[in-house]
């Protein structure tokens, strides 16, 4: 039974999306698996009462970016240290992982294929589905994958979770999706 091949699509999405901008995975996964609602921005502190004397507002000089001291090398960019999710590596890891049984892999593959099919329908111009209808399906499927992986292959779960937004980005981009189909 060729269970792995269908995973490639999902793996490709995950792997291709993980760029250097992907933040490094947090050391603990379980609490982060469920998409947390975006935190509301902190309310801005109340401005101090304006002084009664009206002075002409002077534009504050723009702060200059900190320059490295001469002779010292510039610090490496943070993004460069983020682990890149290589397609081949991820594919192999999904093949090898013992966290998911064969039937479960096949069942998940069926659901991935179904979801990708819905996105193709969307890109073909049919409505429904709309993106707002597809997002919950995507979130639910990713949650299923992560919940199956997180206990027995936590590192793979972290990498997939870190690529969540990027995977969504590929699915919603017609050209990118076509590249992986």
């Amino acid at each position, binding site marked *: *039974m060729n269970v792995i091949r269908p995973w490639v699509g999902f793996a490709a999405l995950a792997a291709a999306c993980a760029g250097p901008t992907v933040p490094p995975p947090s050391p603990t996964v379980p609490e982060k698996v469920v998409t947390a609602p975006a935190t509301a921005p902190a309310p801005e502190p109340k401005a101090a009462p304006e002084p009664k004397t009206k002075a002409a507002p002077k534009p504050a000089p723009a702060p200059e970016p900190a320059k490295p001291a001469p002779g010292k090398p510039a610090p490496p960019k943070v993004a460069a240290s983020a682990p890149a999710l290589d397609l081949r590596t991820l594919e192999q890891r999904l093949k090898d992982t013992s966290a*998911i*049984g*064969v*039937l*479960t892999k*096949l*069942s*998940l593959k*069926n*659901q991935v294929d179904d979801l990708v099919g819905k996105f193709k329908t969307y890109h073909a111009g049919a409505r429904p589905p709309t993106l707002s209808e597809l997002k919950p399906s995507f979130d639910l499927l990713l949650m*299923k994958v992560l919940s*199956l992986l997180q206990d027995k292959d936590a590192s793979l779960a972290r990498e997939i979770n870190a690529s969540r937004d990027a995977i969504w980005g590929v699915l919603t981009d017609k050209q990118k999706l076509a590249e992986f189909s």
Partner: protein
Amino acid sequence: MKRLALTACLAAAVAVAADDPKQKEDLAAVIALQGKPCGEVVSYTVQGANDFVATCKDGNKYRVHVKDGRVVVEKQ
């Protein structure tokens, strides 16, 4: 008489009770993925290649098999 014995042997071989914990987990995960109530698979029988009947802790029984590359879960 020989034919009868052979048939009986084949019938016995068709459904084999098995007790592999990993297979139970796999079946439970598949059933859960399909959104069906089960909780935990307590036992299962092998009907054939990729064809199982799983008995859940809550009493539900499901046939889990592969058809045309898709995993099908049917309540028994």
